């Protein structure tokens, strides 16, 4: 039973990771808190759903959702952030601008869905359950885990093994130096926002399938959890976000299973608070700001 909960938690954690990685990617590289990330995730779920309803096979719907969410993310970069980046007043204004972008996405989804909760058709994903050593693992869970692993591996490969990735990381370390070295910022922004959006879109479809519920507000709770995971992992740290997501998934599943769901929130956010006090830059984060405050 306990092991079963761990497995359930890990699968959910894998999906959190997809969501959180896109979020932390943008922050780590561009120092922008993109609060429209929840909206992009929701957009992915909607595109996936509408594609399936239009009769497309699920795999195609999944790809369309990823690409569509990626494009929406790129559009948000251009409309919500590009001007601000040039003005140099990014921190707060980008926050509010991205809230605005999120509201636009939410509003469109609300109008399209007429404020209804939508569901995938019953047989979208075959209901098959495998039993291994007394543990129950559904085909959907298996697929979610495999996809999460593939996508995270793909992201790592991209960031650490390709020339594009090297450029992206150069920008993350020192944007000005990278620009002087001839890296075109618009190309980098396009890539990071596309990747971030694609991951969010994938997470959207998977969450839509897993909970079989898609609605215009579905991004908000994920945004909240995304914050927790990303901060625990250390903003901008890919490995940190991954570990924190899995841990968070397990913790949440266990605390809901063995305690009440209300206590679960107190525990999770209390833990977040405590971790931040002990490690002010998250579990895997480094103090890159280098704020010179003086000894005390």
């Amino acid at each position, binding site marked *: 039973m306990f092991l079963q909960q761990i497995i359930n938690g890990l699968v959910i954690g894998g999906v959190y990771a997809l969501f959180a990685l896109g979020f932390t990617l943008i922050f780590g590289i561009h120092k922008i808190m993109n609060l429209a990330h929840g909206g992009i995730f929701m957009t992915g779920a909607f595109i996936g759903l509408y594609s399936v309803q239009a009769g497309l096979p699920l795999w195609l719907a999944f790809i369309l959702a990823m690409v569509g969410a990626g494009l929406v993310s790129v559009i948000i970069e251009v409309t919500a952030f590009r001007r601000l980046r040039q003005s140099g007043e990014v921190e707060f204004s980008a926050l509010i601008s991205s809230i605005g972008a999120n509201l636009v996405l939410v509003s469109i989804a609300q109008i399209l869905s007429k404020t209804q909760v939508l569901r995938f058709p019953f047989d979208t994903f075959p209901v098959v359950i495998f039993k291994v050593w007394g543990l129950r693992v559904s085909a959907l869970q298996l697929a979610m885990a495999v996809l999460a692993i593939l996508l995270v591996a793909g992201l790592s490969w991209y960031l650490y093994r390709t020339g594009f990735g090297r450029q992206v990381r150069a920008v993350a370390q020192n944007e000005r130096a990278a620009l002087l070295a001839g890296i075109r910022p618009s190309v980098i922004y396009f890539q990071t926002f596309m990747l971030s959006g694609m991951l969010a879109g994938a997470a959207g479809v998977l969450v839509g399938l897993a909970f079989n519920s898609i609605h215009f507000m579905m991004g908000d709770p994920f945004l909240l959890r995304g914050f927790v995971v990303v901060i625990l992992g250390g903003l901008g740290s890919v490995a940190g976000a991954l570990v924190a997501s899995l841990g968070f998934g397990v913790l949440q599943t266990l605390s809901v299973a063995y305690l009440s769901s209300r206590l679960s929130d107190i525990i999770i956010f209390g833990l977040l608070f405590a971790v931040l006090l002990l490690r002010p830059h998250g579990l895997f984060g480094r103090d890159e700001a280098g704020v*010179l*405050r*003086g*000894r*005390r």
Partner: protein
Amino acid sequence: MTDLVLENVHKNFGGVVASNDVSMRVPAGRITGLIGPNGAGKTTLINLITGMLSLSSGKVLFGGHDISAEPADRVARAGMGRTFQNIRLQKEASVLANVMIGFHRHETCSLIAAILGLPSSRREDALLRQKAMALLGRFGMAGDADSPAGSLAYGHQRKVEMMRALATDPDLILLDEPVAGMNDVEALQLGRIFRELADEGKAILLIEHNMRFVQELCDHVYVLDGGRLIAEGTPRDVVADPAVITAYLGEE
């Protein structure tokens, strides 16, 4: 008389020694120079003195009190003012506002009076405004009182920093490259002000690249290289010191 005394000040970052057993004396009423090639550890030393970094070992005495472990704001309140090499101003705020913040440690009105806007708070505000204007007059910048500090030329911004440091009414002023970006006439004017301040009994520690300025102004000079003192003495002696020449030439 408030002298600053460094006794075997030592600092290492990880394994890198940034400040190696530095002992020096910055007496009141004098202008003391601190020079050295880039990366010699001047800024580290300033940060150790002003409480921005903690010492690995050694002591910083100010007016006879050990301030080695005091936090930066208490060091400042003990009477140490400073300017920054990379000018740090409130760029949006007016020049006047930038100078007025310097009076902070001498403000007396109560918190409640400030929150409720009681007469005592308003009186103090008006008084500080006058005092700040007087400082601006001394530096020939009264006409810029309402300009945003960030809109001024480089040299003028340095002056604003100095006025702000002076507003704290310090016993010791650390000037980190105060005449960088100024022409000779401006530098000369400032030099005269520094001398006046020393004559008033303040201790002045001048960190500077401009050797001519140091030679003209300083009473005593310390030379830092690779975190350790390699020479000290009158400006004339120091410039002739072979170790100093090697340090500077070696840099090029």
